């Protein structure tokens, strides 16, 4: 029992950080913000699900996916399909030439519900689909890629292409998906009006609670053997493989977990914002979500949440008043984070001075050596941390 708690919350300072985050999300935000702003924060927090997933698969596993929007979108679309069907009952859509189907289908001369929409009339199936469809899709991509040892830049490009394909597909199949506008005008969930203020409050708390649950789950995964192996294979994949582990299985697992988190975020997005569109699926949102995780600190689950909030706050604040400046700033943020602060906010906080107080290892050893080290032998820190994580591996014999 003690070990379980320890694995879920980590050390005392980890627990403190988690409690602070919980207090900020569950107490400070709701008390200080009006419902419009709180709803906006809720929207940002749905992106944080993706960022937390990216910390797992990119920060720890070294797998950079530039297509997390795929899973965010799939989760969001599953939820949106259910809500849309509920919003298009035969009575409210009586003026359509075919009552009872979503309005955009009617505009596109469809006369009956497409087969893959039919199961989404059931709420139970929808909940199942939100979790299962994106995870299964990630599993397929993962098996196809990792079993054939596709890694690094190749994996990033292929996930990015899949995101592009999915966006083009959704936009092209207007009658089936709502096209470029997406699925809009969502009103009720099982008869409960999701647009009322009360519903927005409730959804915000549900969202924050789910996010905290994801962080705890992420920490549980990382604190176990899987977490150690992920870190090890990021530093020296071959050595993990030579130690007898099937590396691809761990990668597939963590990629699926990241997809699952993103999907939950997507579904919560649909509920809180009231629509879903392809502009949350494609390349641009996918890569922006990577920068959220990078700003927070790519190896910090909690940092990812702060990073997401900070970047989105900046985006809202700047794009309202200086839309031109914002893209320059965003670009500079990408470059600056990568060049100057590869450990993000968490790295700043856990800097040398604070390290002495809390007695933590610096993050630099984790992040900087994680790159593929394609050209030169990795700095000694890399093999040192790989050895630490892999007690069975012989040390210092690989070169």
């Amino acid at each position, binding site marked *: 029992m003690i070990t379980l708690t320890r694995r879920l919350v980590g050390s005392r300072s980890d627990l403190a950080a988690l409690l602070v985050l919980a207090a900020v999300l569950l107490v400070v935000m709701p008390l200080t913000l009006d419902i419009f702003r709180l709803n906006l924060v809720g929207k940002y927090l749905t992106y944080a699900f993706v960022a937390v997933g990216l910390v797992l698969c990119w920060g720890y596993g070294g797998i950079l996916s530039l297509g997390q929007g795929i899973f965010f979108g799939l989760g969001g679309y599953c939820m949106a399909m259910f809500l849309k069907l509920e919003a298009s009952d035969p009575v409210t859509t009586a003026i359509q030439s075919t009552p009872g189907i979503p309005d955009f289908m009617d505009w596109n001369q469809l006369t009956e519900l497409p087969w893959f929409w039919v199961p989404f009339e059931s709420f139970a199936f929808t909940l199942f689909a939100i979790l299962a469809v994106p995870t299964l899709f990630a599993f397929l991509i993962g098996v196809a890629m990792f079993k054939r040892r596709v890694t690094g830049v190749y994996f990033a490009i292929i996930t990015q292409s899949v995101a592009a*394909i999915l966006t083009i597909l959704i936009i092209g199949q207007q009658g089936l998906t709502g096209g470029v506008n997406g699925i809009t005008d969502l009103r009720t969930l099982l008869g409960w009006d999701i647009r009322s203020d009360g519903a927005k409050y409730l959804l915000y708390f549900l969202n924050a609670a789910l996010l905290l649950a994801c962080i705890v789950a992420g920490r549980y995964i990382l604190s176990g053997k899987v977490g150690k192996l992920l870190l090890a294979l990021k530093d020296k994949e071959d050595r993990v493989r030579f130690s007898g582990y099937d590396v691809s299985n761990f990668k597939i697992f963590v990629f699926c977990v990241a997809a699952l988190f993103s999907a939950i975020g997507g579904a919560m997005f649909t509920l809180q914002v009231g629509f879903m569109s392809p502009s949350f699926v494609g390349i641009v949102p996918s890569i922006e979500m990577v920068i959220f995780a990078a700003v927070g600190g790519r190896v910090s689950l909690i940092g990812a949440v702060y990073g997401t909030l900070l970047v989105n706050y900046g985006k809202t604040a700047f794009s309202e008043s200086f839309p031109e400046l914002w893209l320059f700033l965003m670009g500079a943020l990408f470059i600056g984070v990568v060049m100057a602060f590869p450990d993000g906010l968490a790295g700043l906080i856990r800097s040398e001075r604070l390290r002495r107080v809390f007695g933590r290892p610096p993050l630099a050893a984790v992040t900087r050596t994680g790159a593929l080290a394609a050209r030169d032998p990795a700095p000694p820190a890399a093999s040192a941390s790989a050895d630490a994580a892999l007690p069975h591996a012989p040390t210092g014999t690989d070169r």
Partner: protein
Amino acid sequence: MFEGYTASEIGAIFAMQGFAGLSLFCVFLLMALGLAIIFGQMQVINMAHGEFLTIGAYSTYLMSVVAEKHAPWLMDYYFFLAIALGFVVAFAIGWLVEFSLIRFLYKRPLDTLLATWGLSLIMQQGFRSMFGAREVSPTLPEWLLGSWQLSDTIEIPINGLLVVGVTAVLTLAVFFLLFRSRWGLKVRATTQNRVMAEAAGINTARVDRNTFALGCGIAGVAGAVFTTIASTGPTSGSLYIVDTFLVVVFGGAASLFGTIASAFSIAQAQSILEFFINGSMAKVITLAIVIGILMLRPEGLFASRVRK
């Protein structure tokens, strides 16, 4: 799919769509050539590569505006100057980018993706601030307009011929540069074994910088010829970036021949499918097939390097 067409009509469709695909192939190839050389040598992918195409396109536009205003007698020939200008400007900016940004990130290829994405955002917004969000087109010389009637049903546009011609010349030039010149020898040595190349006295950092700049320069030429087939906006280049990445990966990195073959097959498949089903589905199907093949053959069609 073929109902209602006679055999000769289908032949004509294939010929014309094939030629349209040839223009697409040229843009893909010129973009992918640069990326492939850079990726093969330095293992980095430049997400801002599309913006170098845009640089070439805007240089051509500027050139045409200047020629129209100050030197109308140049109008017939300015286009060749514009191609050279596109190359020089993109080469210079590429050199600067390598010097100030990319060279610090060679050990972190994944981070390079993010940094160059940031760069592309900045460049796009820069174009928007300088040239406006609206798309522009240069005034093309008279001889570039019109088309060449091959038969009753087959018409070949002249601008398409120019695109093909420039691409052929440039590809040959790159080939000679890489395989017949002293500098190419250094590039190939660095690509094959960086440490040994350094031991043999090659300044690999300088080779890297020139290779990167050359790749960007080629994209600039792509941009210059691109203006003859489409108008230019701040995001014109980024539209092609995903296809270009796939071309590079599909062809097998660092293989010049593979890049040509994959650019050709992807462009042709897309263009011919486009006639029978709508454009977006043609793209979806082509890209999905490419990814499917890549899952079976992750090292690409013509891999020149051993899988690590």
